[in-house]
């Protein structure tokens, strides 16, 4: 059958499935724990800065950003968005935030704090804490502050210093940022202890931090292997495996083992020149979040020889740094998270590309993963995921003569992404990629 063949256009990693199953199981376990009355925190994605601490304090964590995706896929987001509109929130705000406002409004006003019956995947129970973060986007703390309209839940905002590229290399700045984060994290632990009426078990924290660091290291190594030609692992596997590290889902020790399995499989493929697609004609980068509901378009593109070899910087693990000599677990967390944000600044400084975190990494990826084109997917109601893309497009052309294709989508209005439109643009974009392959050759680039 044609469809059967189409499904095989991407050769998925076998080792990804057990990890994915673990991810799905952890959602389920989490729902059960919450039903059983375990205290819950709603958290913004925070690049491990707060997650590891919440985990060590044995809080169940749900991510309203992630829940936004779930509601969108379940077709329920629209009703929550309408409700947020009716409650007076401007329609241009982050789609995930509006989804959360609508959901919370319904939960608090109509169900007295109980989960509304239509909520997908078990819903989000009323939390004891809202953990906001100022990494990357203002919405991520303004949104939790605004939830005060519906429920009297305390908010803690995690601080993330983010100096400019040049400024980071001024004397003492790096360590000052770390000190600032550590001080804030210590305050956060004290606050949590007061809130929960129990003490932090520092040995658990210590171990969880170490496992998280190692997990990120292994996951980074997996992605390093994707520089091989042909690329052994397609973006689809990245997106399936990513939540386990990004959200620290499930038991981190188990997750670590599963990432090791992925490493072994990908390494095997590299050693044996096995690509993720049958015939790799074009290597591509993908940015930002993928259109989760129509991932099939990746398969259609794979049939044309498009291999997606690297994706959005924000969801990738940081470039590993040696933290074994750092005894304070809070400092290790701070250094890990800080590295995730500024890990590319040194190169950015040398190349005078001052959008050092969201933008510049794509240039490094272009050279290292030798991609022929960038597939840019701005998300209309997620400003932060879209702001840098114009610049990325401009920089890639200016510096390495790599063209981009831009196809708009959204995080909650799934209809915005039109896979047919994306596919219709594939052929002309192949001509563009061919053209720039020649240009790069003429200009002395090695891909």
């Amino acid at each position, binding site marked *: 059958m044609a469809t059967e063949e189409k499904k095989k256009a991407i050769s998925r990693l076998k080792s990804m499935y057990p990890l994915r199953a673990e991810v799905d199981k952890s959602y389920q376990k989490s729902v059960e724990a919450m039903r059983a009355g375990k205290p819950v925190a709603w958290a913004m994605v925070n690049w491990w800065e707060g997650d590891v601490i919440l985990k060590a304090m044995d809080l169940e964590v749900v991510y309203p950003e992630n829940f936004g995706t779930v509601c969108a896929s379940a077709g329920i987001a629209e009703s929550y968005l309408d409700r947020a509109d009716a409650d007076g929130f401007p329609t241009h705000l982050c789609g995930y935030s509006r989804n959360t406002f609508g959901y919370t409004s319904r939960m608090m006003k109509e169900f007295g704090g109980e989960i509304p019956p239509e909520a997908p995947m078990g819903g989000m129970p009323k939390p004891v804490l809202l953990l906001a973060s100022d990494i990357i986007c203002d919405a991520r703390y303004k949104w939790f502050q605004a939830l005060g309209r519906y429920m009297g839940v305390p908010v803690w905002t995690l601080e993330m210093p983010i100096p400019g590229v040049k*400024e980071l290399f001024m004397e003492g700045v790096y360590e000052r940022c770390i000190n600032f984060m550590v001080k804030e994290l210590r305050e956060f632990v004290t606050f949590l202890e007061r809130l929960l009426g129990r003490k932090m078990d520092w040995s658990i924290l210590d171990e969880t931090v170490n496992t998280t660091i190692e997990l990120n290291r292994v996951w980074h190594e997996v992605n390093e292997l994707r520089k091989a030609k042909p690329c052994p692992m397609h973006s689809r596997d990245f997106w399936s495996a990513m939540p386990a590290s990004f959200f620290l889902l499930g038991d981190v020790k188990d997750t670590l083992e599963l990432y090791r399995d992925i490493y072994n499989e990908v390494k095997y493929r590299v050693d044996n020149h096995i690509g993720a697609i049958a015939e790799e004609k074009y290597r591509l980068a993908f940015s930002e979040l993928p259109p989760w509901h129509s991932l099939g378009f990746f398969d259609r593109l794979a049939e044309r020889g498009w291999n997606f070899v690297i994706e959005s910087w924000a969801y990738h693990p940081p470039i590993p740094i040696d933290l074994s000599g750092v005894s304070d677990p809070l400092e290790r967390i701070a250094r890990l998270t800080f590295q995730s944000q500024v890990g590319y600044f040194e190169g950015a400084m040398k190349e005078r590309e001052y*959008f050092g975190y969201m933008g510049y990494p794509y240039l490094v990826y272009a050279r290292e993963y030798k991609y022929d084109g960038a597939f840019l997917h701005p998300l209309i109601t997620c400003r932060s995921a879209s702001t840098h893309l114009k610049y990325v497009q401009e920089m890639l052309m200016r510096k390495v003569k790599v063209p981009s294709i831009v196809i708009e989508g959204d995080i909650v209005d799934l209809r915005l992404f039109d896979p047919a439109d994306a596919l219709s643009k594939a052929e002309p974009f192949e001509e563009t990629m061919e053209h720039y392959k020649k240009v790069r050759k003429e200009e002395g680039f090695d891909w």
Partner: protein
Amino acid sequence: MVAETKGLARAREIYQDRPRRAKELKAEGKKIVGYPCIYSPSEMMTALDLVPYRIFGDMKEPTAEADRGLPAAFCPIMRSCLHLGLKGSYDFLDGMVVAHSCDAQEKTVHVWECLISSPYFHFLDVPGTVHKASQDYFKEGLKDLKKTLESFAGKELSSEKLKRAIEAHNQQRSLVREMYELRKPDPPLISGTETLQVIKALMSIPVEEGNELLKQVITEVKERKDGPQKKPARLLIWSSTIDDISLIEIIETAEANLVVDDHCGGTRAYWTDVKLTEDPIDGLAYHYLVELRCPRTYMDAVYGETSKDYMADLESRFGYIKDYAKGWNVNGVILQSVRYCDCHGFEAPQIKDYLDSLGLPNTYLEHDYSEGALAALRTRVQAFVEMIG
């Protein structure tokens, strides 16, 4: 060149051609330093004999150039600033001091730094919270700014000089507040349109010149007989940046006087003085991080509170708006924001809750910072004014 016009006429003149005076000063050998938002501490520039010059957008111009670096669904003010930067309207600037106020601004200035070359460019990180550790971190950041400014200006910045600059800027703050006092009578002695022209002029010229201008304006306004007419509505506007009088004229051509405001083209930069501390940077750090009231900063009613009381939260965050409303005898509030502004967009419904709790009529308006938006705004404002009239 000595200014021939004075007071309000002079303010209007500067408003209409902001770069003119800056270019004159540049010709005299001064260095002009741009800053897009009030979180850049002008005092440091003044103290080094640099001229701080606020970067504004221009809502009368389409923002085509900005497409090179920013998406369409993005803060239109920032898009406009980048557009003007890319087409060369700010080429006379010798340097830039930019701050991490909101994220739209932070990301725009990184793009700016990549695409528009400038002899000097400093990015000042601003924490999201006002915790003690945040204040300490911010203070050290200000010291870094001082260092790079010193090497750019080619001279040292002593504590004494910085204190004198703070005093001059505090004098400006106090004169601005005096000017706002003139809006308390009914009818107000100075209109919202005139006030915006003055504030925009202040943000385009050296502080001492601005102080002189303010004194002239205050004297002139007190003496003149042809000020604004009495009208039934006395409005307050809370807003993202307002930098064009057409947004104010909409209100003042309706049956309303705009008597007080809360935005960064109005009171926001001037409402509290910088405390003169032994180390002047302490006062600056506290002022810019803790005292400036912009929704970009996360504020708690009680630091580290383990329970949350929404009304107490609102009171601690917006109590100053109640003071404005009382002091200026306001009977209606316009909440306004440009589209795609997260900071003001999330804040607006909460301020609305607060104003509702005070029984103050209010309305929320949104626009895309273009001339095309004015007609719809006019209709909305008129309807609101009629409602409270």
